[in-house]
């Protein structure tokens, strides 16, 4: 019964999306206030109805109602309660419901947000958001119904892939979706701006908090997914350049470029067409990613079950939305007046460089992701594109990006010239040289990439501090930017340390035997069976010491799940101040010894700490935008020129 209510709520939401798309559209064309006024309640109700729909499906999972098909396929009565809930998004239909719910809630949030650009603009934005939602409701209800029943109902479910049974998975998908589906707001704003001829600095200021919020959530979601891979998959990797990871990275890259160019538009009324294009591109890449992952056109470790019908449906949606928005762009962007001009060597110039490099990275990631498909279609031998391609292509671009990151924020808006720049750059340059030199002298393995990585991190960090120190007043946008850029430096330290300074040892040990790796020593104390809630495991107890000093005991496990039957390794990690000791238990060798792997990954947690700082920086800057908005009266067009006037000091 509750399941049917959830299903009904979804149909009602679809009907409201229809009203929001067409009735509001007619209202906007005829300037009929009664029809235009429908947009707001329709968007709010959609948010509520999709939430009801989610709650109904949660209920089916919590009560193990195996007459619901996706519950039977993905859950099990023995599963701990938290994982019954999270099994909802461990499959295609449920995760798509989450996707659509985020879309509808974002629509509700637009409806509730203060009205900065007038009621007509808001209705237009809601119309665009409703139109996107409509297609995805139809996709969900038509070919991916999460409420489909199963008759006869089985008495027990198939269970969830044990790798997904982890607290990390409880929060990673919702956060990730909040980010990349949240970018739909920027898309809807861009479509509305083109239809209502509102590509202005005040439009940029209105869309900016939405971009920052979605981008911060996406950053957090990606960082969390990477951390989850690191501690569950058992070999210490944190990014695999898998198509699904790239599907979330591509919108992130576009959104990163967008939040920088939107600042230029807001502050200086330049880069109008480009900012518009990026607003469209960010969410378009989210949809492309969803298509690539769910259509089966690429094979990936993360892909959901494949169904060509779904692929065609998604392709049609993609063609309508992205194709429609880009057609609108091609037609309307000619009428967009050229924005303000600026010197190549200026803050705007640096932000253009930032955008060009980010777009180049986006291009190579996109090409690498679809290359296997291209080559397959060309009839050549199937191949997969792996980390070596991405490292070789993205690496040099990242170096350029980070070099520019150290200089850009120190330049002034509009005015060209490099006067005073050498003094400002002295501290970052010295810090970078010192970090490089220290790496050469002190690092265990002073490779060129280690010197470069640590040097660049010091360069970025110190330059960010110089900007903060020189700002006349540490406003929220400046603090946010500094936090995010220092986050970049922190993550870079982590990535460099983990990729160049990791020590690793493979050994087979009898109980009581020890192995040595550099200053570390590990002793296998015992291996014994233990029973988990829905698995049994062999747990090894390893004592670990460094320089003869005991650090603690680590207990990695090999888990055998019953439903479905599958073995997983659970690594044991001991975080020290300067890195992680990582132990995994392997197979018995047959003569009473056990294979094990010990590694020390210096500063590896800095990667995710950096990611967290970047997300926090985005939130800080985003909330500043909200506060500004709250203190301004809604029709403040008169004050806009004052905002867009060139400021003599960098204020962002």
């Amino acid at each position: 019964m509750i399941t049917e209510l959830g299903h009904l709520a979804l149909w009602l939401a679809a009907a409201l999306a229809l009203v929001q798309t067409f009735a509001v559209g007619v209202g906007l064309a005829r300037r009929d206030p009664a029809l235009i006024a429908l947009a707001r309640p329709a968007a709010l109700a959609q948010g509520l109805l999709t939430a009801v729909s989610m709650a109904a499906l949660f209920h089916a999972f919590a009560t193990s109602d195996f007459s619901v098909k996706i519950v039977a396929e993905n859950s099990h009565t023995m599963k701990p309660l938290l994982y019954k809930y999270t099994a909802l998004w461990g499959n295609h239909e449920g995760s798509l419901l989450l996707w659509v719910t985020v879309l509808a809630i974002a629509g509700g949030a637009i409806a509730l947000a203060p009205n900065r650009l007038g009621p007509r603009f808001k209705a237009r934005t809601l119309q665009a958001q409703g139109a996107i939602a409509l297609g995805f409701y139809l996709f969900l209800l038509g070919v991916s119904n999460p409420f489909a029943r199963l008759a006869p109902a089985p008495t027990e479910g198939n269970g969830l892939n044990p790798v997904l049974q982890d607290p990390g998975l409880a929060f990673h998908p919702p956060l990730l979706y909040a980010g990349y589906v949240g970018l739909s707001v920027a898309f809807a704003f861009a479509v509305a701006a083109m239809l209502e001829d509102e590509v202005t600095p005040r439009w940029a200021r209105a869309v900016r908090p939405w971009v920052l919020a979605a981008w911060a959530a996406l950053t957090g979601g990606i960082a969390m997914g990477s951390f989850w891979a690191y501690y569950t998959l058992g070999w210490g990797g944190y990014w695999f350049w898998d198509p699904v990871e790239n599907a979330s990275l591509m919108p992130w890259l576009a959104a990163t470029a967008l939040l920088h160019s939107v600042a230029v538009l807001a502050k200086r009324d330049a880069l109008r067409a480009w900012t518009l294009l990026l607003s469209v591109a960010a969410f378009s890449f989210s949809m492309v990613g969803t298509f690539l992952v769910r259509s089966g056109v690429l094979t990936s470790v993360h892909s959901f079950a494949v169904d060509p019908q779904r692929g065609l449906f998604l392709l049609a949606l993609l063609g309508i939305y992205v194709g429609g928005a880009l057609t609108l762009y091609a037609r309307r962007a000619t009428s967009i007046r050229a924005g303000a001009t600026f010197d190549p060597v200026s803050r705007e110039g640096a932000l253009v460089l930032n955008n060009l490099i980010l777009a180049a990275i986006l291009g190579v990631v996109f090409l690498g992701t679809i290359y296997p498909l291209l080559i397959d279609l060309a009839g050549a031998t199937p191949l997969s594109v792996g980390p070596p391609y991405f490292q070789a292509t993205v690496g040099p671009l990242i170096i350029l990006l980070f070099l520019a990151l150290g200089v850009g924020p120190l330049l002034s808006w509009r005015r060209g010239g490099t006067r005073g720049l050498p003094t400002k750059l002295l501290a970052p340059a010295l810090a970078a040289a010192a970090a490089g030199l220290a790496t050469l002298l002190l690092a265990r393995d002073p490779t060129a990439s280690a010197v470069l990585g640590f040097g660049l991190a010091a360069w970025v960090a110190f330059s960010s501090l110089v900007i903060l120190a020189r700002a006349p007043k540490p406003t929220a946008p400046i603090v946010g930017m500094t936090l995010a850029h220092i986050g970049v430096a922190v993550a870079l330290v982590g990535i460099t340390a983990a990729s160049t300074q990791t020590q690793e040892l493979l050994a087979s040990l009898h109980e009581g035997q020890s192995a040595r790796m550099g200053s570390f020593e590990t002793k296998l104390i015992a291996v014994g069976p233990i029973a988990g809630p829905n698995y049994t495991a062999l747990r090894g107890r390893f004592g670990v010491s460094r320089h003869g000093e005991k650090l603690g005991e680590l207990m990695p496990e090999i888990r055998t799940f019953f439903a479905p039957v599958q073995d997983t390794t659970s690594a044991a990690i001991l975080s020290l101040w300067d890195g992680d000791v990582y132990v995994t238990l392997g197979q018995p060798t047959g003569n009473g010894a056990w294979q094990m792997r010990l590694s020390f990954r210096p500063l590896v947690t800095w990667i995710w700490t950096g990611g967290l700082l970047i997300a926090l920086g985005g939130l800080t800057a985003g909330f500043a935008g909200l506060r500004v908005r709250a203190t301004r009266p809604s029709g403040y067009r008169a004050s806009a020129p004052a905002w867009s006037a060139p400021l003599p000091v960098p204020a962002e």
Partner: protein
Amino acid sequence: MSRLGRFALLAPLTLFGAFIIVVGFGLRHDPHHEVRSALIGHPAPAFDLPGYDPTHPGLASSDLAHGNVTVVNVFASWCLPCRVESPQLAMLASQGVVVHAIAIHDTHDGLASFFRNYGNPFRRIGLDDSGKAQIAWGSSGVPETFIVDGKGIVRLQHIGEIRADDMPDLMREIARARS
């Protein structure tokens, strides 16, 4: 930024159109065809490995082109699935199929205890301490099994352990390699 040319405005749409066409074809195309080893239909790679003991001499590429179909089993004594497939290998050997082995990263003691527990169906055993022969064979793990025909041409690569229900397929492929 100056006024954009017509081309710049149409470029995103054009690129997107190209993408839609490519993935449209991609959808009609089945990506799930089996990835075959590049070695199939080609001569076995050149290698020469030392033997395990006098009754089980080493294995080299020259041992594979004597007119008989041979089975080459890439295994290791430390590998669990390799134990699972031992009855199937024994059955092959009992039916007169010549089964050779390449032992990866192994020790004499490890092999001796493996053979004590699970039997030794092998004619020749090449010790691949460096793993280089394994790489030359395009094998990414243990166990893997190759069928090589009398001219030394690789006919089949079986990845993973040989289970009882894999046997009919394997026997059919051996019969085909003989003809």
